[in-house]
């Protein structure tokens, strides 16, 4: 099996796993890890865009031009994308910390419930009761109030 195919499989696999993690996970930190995986996959795909087996860096040493040179543009782009990704990851985790301090939970279903409650309280309307609202949460909310 050639290297290119393996790398492409890895890139699309990471994108798939990351997307599934974002959509399916109910824990905020796992969702954030999903974003990290998704970004890694996208970055790998960008690097692979001009991948050629056995190519070397496009540097002319002693007047000798390498036979196959790698395109440096995607490498520069990926560097930028990685930096952006790390920054957003840090921001996401710090916001997750704030959410944890505010609501005492990182479960996304609970966070969403509490957020809806906050917005409704703010507007002075009562939350429409829905049949799929987790019952345990509602009673706990009641006992706190």
């Amino acid at each position, binding site marked *: 099996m050639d290297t290119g195919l393996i790398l492409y499989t890895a890139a699309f696999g990471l994108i798939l796993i990351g997307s599934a993690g974002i959509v399916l996970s109910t824990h905020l930190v796992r969702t954030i890890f999903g974003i990290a995986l998704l970004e890694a996959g996208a970055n790998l795909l960008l690097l692979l865009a001009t991948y050629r087996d056995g190519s070397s860096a496009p540097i002319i040493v002693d007047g000798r031009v390498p036979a196959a040179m790698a395109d440096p543009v995607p490498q520069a782009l990926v560097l930028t994308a990685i930096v952006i990704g790390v920054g*957003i990851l840090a921001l996401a985790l710090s916001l997750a910390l704030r959410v944890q301090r505010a609501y005492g939970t990182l479960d996304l279903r609970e966070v969403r419930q*509490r957020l809806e409650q906050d917005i409704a309280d703010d*507007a002075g309307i009562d939350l429409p009761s829905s049949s799929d609202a987790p019952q345990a949460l509602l009673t706990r909310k009641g006992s706190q109030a």
Partner: protein
Amino acid sequence: MNKLVLLVALPLITAFLLPVINRVSAFAGRWSGPLILLISSVLGISLWSQLGDSAVAVQLGGFRPPLGITLYADQMAILFAVAASLGTLLLWPNGGEDPVRQSTLALILAASGSGLALSGDLFNIYVFYELVAVVSYGLIAAKATSGSYAATVRYLVVSSFGAAMALTGIALVYQATGTLNLAQLAQLAPTHLNTVQGLAAFVLMLIGFGVKAELFPVNTWVPEVYATAPARISGLLAGVVSKLALLIIVRLLVLVFHQPEALTVMLVLGIIGVVSGELAAWRARDFKRMLAFSSIGQLGIMFIAFAIPGKAGIFAGLAVALHHLVVKPALFLLAERWSGSLSSLAGAAKASPLAAALFILLALSLIGVPPLPGFWAKLLVLLELSQQAQPLYYLGAFVILAAAALEANYLFRVASRFYHPEIGQPTAATHRMPELARASLLTVGLAASVFALTPLAEQIEGIAAQAADAAHYIQTVNPETQP
């Protein structure tokens, strides 16, 4: 023409100098941000008048087109760059805990918004888009309430997902063509991107850039964010930032992706956006979320309009977009003091008669009642839709008409409540002067445009004709190419 660079560079430099300036003088720290935005708005307007019908491209660092970074300015780009500066100036964040940090973020938002409008390179667009996203997280969370943190983090997840999708699309484009310069892509697109891979790249980028443009499957953040963010920031996101994202999608459609399927995807998502947004707005029971959902519906109309092929679609779409650009921020400014439930607004007209009158005028224009500009914009979209042969476009026209009926229902319901005799204690607060002044300014501008409809329409048509001309773009960026 190097003044073009200043539109991006000036606010960006000031943003990072602001903490230092503030340490020297609090007065300078407070006013240098708005001053710089005023300067860059004036700069942009003077560029607009210089430019006329021509367009310019600036190669940063003097590298020739495919290698360097290109800034491209036609009328549409400058229009939205000025909208970014002027919009941020008008909706300058106030209040909150740390005004200096918020000012810094607002300046970066203006700079990256202008950059987004002017950029002629796909990767730069991605970077500016991420910059806009990161800055808006900070501005949304400025209230520092538990709700605003939760809304921000949920927005961040959706937005990061979208950005990664856009990056994947960019990787696919680069894989097929080996360039990200939009002018060069426009040349290579007919031979290299007229494939399934090209279509996949477009759909990925549509989802990616659609997050900010409140496109249907990735707009779950809209009601939560607009309900918890400061009113001015909601206005800025709904009014200006969403249009910038839309501008990118239009550019991509004109220059790079010519498949008819691409338009169909946009049309279908737009129709779903209108239906879901307007129905949710109809059901909403508080003012801010009603506005948020109605904004999803309006953006859906723009997606439907831009899905019409050729110049006609851009003309109609631009008309709706410019109308919404003025109306939605004004409505959010009014919403600042009407954040309560709709039933608590009974008798609000007595507390602030001017605000209620402004709301009614804006609502009438939003619904599309002649002779207000909103009517002409919607009429234009409907006329262009009726010229199309495909039945899906007729569905779009029908949905827009039905949505107008729904809008009339829920907006008039609010308006009638304003003039309802109060029951018990009046709960609605009076508006603060700065908010009211800004909303009045926008509304007066909207009303004044009624008297200049014909020149305005000709102007917008000119912008659309220029924006729809891909050969013109290629020629401007790279004059050596043979037409």
